[in-house]
């Protein structure tokens, strides 16, 4: 007696569990029950486990009977001629969809030649051990397994054409590459339609060498002249959105050029780009601080007293500005209404993003790095045949990471570009290293891929032979211009007078607790004080009673709330946050007194 569990619930029992499982399996292949059903007989628990619910990952395998796959070369012939379809094969019971549970019951062969009588299934292709993304990487089977994870992530972050209707879309943080190529070294998956229409990289000439120290620690050197010719150039879209909101009481926002009497009116200059309707028009060049959409709102947080005093209701400026530090051309303006009839405005600003120092690049083997330097073509090294690399990659990135796929792709790309063909880099089944090297030798190059190179600055021959070739590089979406942050002076927080936090608020970089300890450990006491001077204030203190006094800096007079006019008032330099601390102590009933001493 074996019990039967259907979708996790015990439903009954059968006499022979193994036979029942086999029976269900055959019924499924015969098309009597849906092909998504999975059965397993668990010998340890003497249980038949049947799953037919949603959410299980299934994978297709060729059914094997008596050591022979059910799909014959005849089937493949018919399939390639289009006379039968995949569904037909599933219906004929030649293809099984297995879930994780049933997989435990199956004995799956990776290749046809390793089939035995015990095998139940055959892998359609060894490539199917990889996911869709990993199968796009050439020669992944030659890489250290850990490297393929960042490799897949690099590909996902590549700037390409993520959507062919990007002109009509409004996406946050969207970058579109201007010129993209199909890789020379490709896998079978690159022949699929979606890979063809969504390219994500460019084939560039890469030299593996150290050059003037600008490609240390995973940095790369990029040929500036190539960049000027448009290498890896991309555009970046920044949407600005706003809506004419309706408030309780019939008041609404208004999208318009704000009047001069509006509260919070900016300079006339910043509204200069607006059309009569209060929105910039396409093809207008805008930069940080320019108003993109002019808007005024009814006063919300103005107290009743202010309303009374002002007489008429003033309106508040609430325009949308171009982000500080960014500039670009207004690409599209969208005007549309929401569900309740509110007017929505979206302005999409297009920015040109040529490659600059600090931009991130990746390959399909997990070797990623930032641009360390842009060199003019004449300063780059060149080969005997006059080839100047687009990218110089550091050889020190290879040994510890063991990404042999990188080297194979480099040779493969060289062979492909010399032979004018695509190279098959499909994992497990792609072209072999020996064949590629043989072909490279037949074009008159060293079969190792190395070449003699000359220093571009001095013209001297470089003693070492340099490994050069072609391969696909991917520009990743992490542009420095979106991340760069610096500050000399800038906005401060209202309460503490300390610098604001965060890039978008022009904030400072915090000198934290541990950094402070570093200053102290070095004995740099005065330097530390200066670093913390950002919230420096001068407060008057009564030297007699130690309480904080009142002082008029213009008239240089003051009084102490306790000792009166005659009290000796001293000005103390301290941090605004310490003053708040003293005030908070007072608010909880503790009276701090400042006892003054001689400064020297």
């Amino acid at each position, binding site marked *: 007696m074996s019990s039967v569990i259907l979708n996790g619930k015990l439903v009954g029992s059968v006499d022979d569990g193994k036979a029942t499982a086999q029976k269900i399996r055959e019924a499924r292949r015969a098309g009597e029950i849906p092909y998504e059903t999975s059965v397993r007989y668990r010998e340890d628990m003497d249980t038949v486990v049947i799953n037919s619910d949603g959410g299980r990952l299934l994978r297709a395998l060729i059914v094997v009977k008596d050591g022979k796959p059910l799909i014959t070369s005849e089937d493949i012939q018919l399939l390639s001629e289009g006379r039968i379809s995949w569904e037909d094969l599933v219906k004929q019971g030649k293809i099984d969809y297995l879930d994780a549970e049933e997989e435990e019951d199956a004995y799956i062969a990776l290749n046809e030649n390793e089939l035995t009588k015990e095998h139940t299934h055959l892998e359609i292709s060894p490539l199917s051990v990889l996911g869709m993304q990993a199968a796009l990487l050439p020669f992944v089977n030659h890489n250290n397994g850990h490297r393929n994870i960042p490799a897949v992530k690099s590909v996902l972050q590549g700037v390409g054409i993520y959507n062919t209707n990007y002109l009509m879309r409004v996406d946050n943080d969207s970058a579109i590459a201007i010129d993209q190529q199909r890789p020379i070294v490709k896998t079978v998956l690159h022949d699929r339609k979606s890979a063809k229409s969504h390219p994500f990289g460019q084939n560039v000439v890469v030299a593996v060498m150290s050059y003037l120290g600008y490609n240390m620690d995973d940095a790369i050197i990029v040929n500036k002249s190539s960049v000027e010719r448009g290498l890896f150039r991309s555009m970046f879209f920044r949407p600005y959105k706003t809506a004419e909101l309706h408030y309780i009481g019939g008041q609404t926002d208004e999208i318009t050029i704000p009047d001069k009497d509006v509260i919070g009116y900016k300079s006339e200059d910043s509204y200069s780009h607006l059309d009569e309707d209060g929105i910039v028009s396409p093809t207008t060049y805008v930069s940080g601080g320019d108003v993109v959409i002019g808007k005024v709102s009814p006063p919300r947080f103005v107290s009743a007293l202010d309303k009374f005093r002002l007489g008429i209701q003033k309106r508040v400026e609430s325009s949308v500005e171009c982000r500080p530090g960014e500039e670009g051309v207004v690409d599209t303006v969208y005007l549309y209404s929401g569900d309740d009839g509110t007017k929505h405005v979206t302005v999409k600003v297009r920015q040109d993003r040529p490659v600059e120092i600090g931009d991130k690049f990746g390959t399909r083997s997990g070797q990623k790095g930032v641009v360390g330097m842009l060199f003019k073509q004449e300063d780059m090294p060149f080969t005997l045949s006059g080839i100047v690399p687009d990218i110089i990659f550091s050889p020190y990135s290879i040994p510890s990471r063991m990404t042999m796929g990188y080297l194979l792709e480099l040779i493969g790309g060289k062979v492909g570009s010399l032979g004018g063909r695509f190279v098959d880099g499909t994992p497990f089944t792609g072209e072999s290293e020996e064949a590629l090297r043989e072909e490279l030798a037949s074009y008159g190059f060293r079969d190792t891929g190395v070449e003699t190179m000359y220093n571009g600055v001095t013209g001297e021959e470089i003693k070492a032979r340099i490994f050069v070739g072609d391969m696909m590089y991917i520009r990743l979406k992490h542009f420095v211009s979106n991340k760069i942050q610096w500050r000399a002076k800038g906005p401060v927080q209202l309460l503490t007078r300390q610098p604001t936090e965060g890039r978008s608020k022009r904030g400072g970089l915090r000198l934290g607790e541990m950094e402070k300890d570093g200053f*102290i450990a070095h004995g*740099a006491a005065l330097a530390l004080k200066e670093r913390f001077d950002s919230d420096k204030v001068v407060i008057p203190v009564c030297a007699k009673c130690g309480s904080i006094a009142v002082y008029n*800096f213009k008239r240089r007079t003051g009084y102490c709330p306790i000792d009166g006019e005659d009290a000796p008032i001293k000005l103390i330099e*301290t941090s605004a946050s310490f003053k708040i601390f003293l005030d908070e102590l007072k608010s909880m009933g503790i009276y701090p007194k400042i006892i003054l001493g001689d400064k*020297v």
Partner: protein
Amino acid sequence: MDISEIPKKYIEKFKQIEGENADLNKLKEIYEKSLITRGEAVGIVAAQSIGEASTQLTLRTKHVAGLSAINVTSGLPRLVELFDAKKNIATPSMTIYLKEDIAKSREKALDFADRLIQIKVGDLISSYSIQLRRKELIFLFDREAMDSYKITFKDVESKLRPLNFEMSVDGNELHVIDKTADSIKKIMRTKSRISSTLIRGILGIERTIVSQDKDGSFYISTYGTNLKEVLKQEEVDTTRTVSNDVLEVASVLGIEAARTLIINEASQTLEAVGLMVDSRHLSLVADAMCSDGSVRGISRYGITGEVESVISRASFEVPLRHLVNAAVMHETDKFDYVANNVMSNQVVPVGTGVVKLVLRENGRGSQKDDSGEDKTE
């Protein structure tokens, strides 16, 4: 500085290396050079040196199954335990060195190690029952256990006699009548009193393991500590035997021993994972912890909680308590610590900040010039 101020041990060592007629002025130069300069932030440098190394320690502790070795807490948990001066450490353990004659013989050492293990009445009982009406407790003893420990009922009875209960032995059973008991609670208390009575061994020592050191002499490692009692044993080499419980060592052997133990344990913990921390940093920490004659941890209950400056204390932990207490006690903060000067943006009295102007030229820097009027100009 005079040569006489140099500690004798350095002079001896110097003469050992350079010969009897060595020029002591040279030593003086070396000595002065190696002294810490005034204003050096030794505390923070020590904290950083230990802290940087301990970031490489993982929180996880390795637990080895089996009986072959004593498994003592290591890594970051042990460091925290040491520097916080925890009262109940996770794995109290002793290393007992033996006197020459016993240390050379495995049998003698094993025998002594066995005698150290605590055996309580509770370890020998397989079950018990209560006769409420007669206020009687019946313990069923495990004969096998008793035989293996070579304990007879006579031993048990003699150990229980001081408790003053009516007792009788019946086969494997021990009948105890507690006349004073007037509730189940009291009977249960009697029961636990009896089962926690020590029959043999030293209280607190749960397990012992005999190992051999490089010289071939045997020593005993234990689970559980009782330094005071162990040191009373004749077989023990009292000069070397230690416990890893700092507070216990402080109470038994004194504060200097505790200080040495802190340094040894901390450096051993760090060395065990291959981290190098200069012993000067560790001895500074140990000195700070033991400076007042008792072991105080670096926590809000220890030395950090006893800092003179109110604001520095408040900026560490539980600020409200410190501030309110300071207000009640009318405390004054002299602003001679680091944290309070950083808070109020004053010069920290460390490094360049300790230097003060001594000479006033032309009266400048006098109090008058410090008034507000001059500042605003």
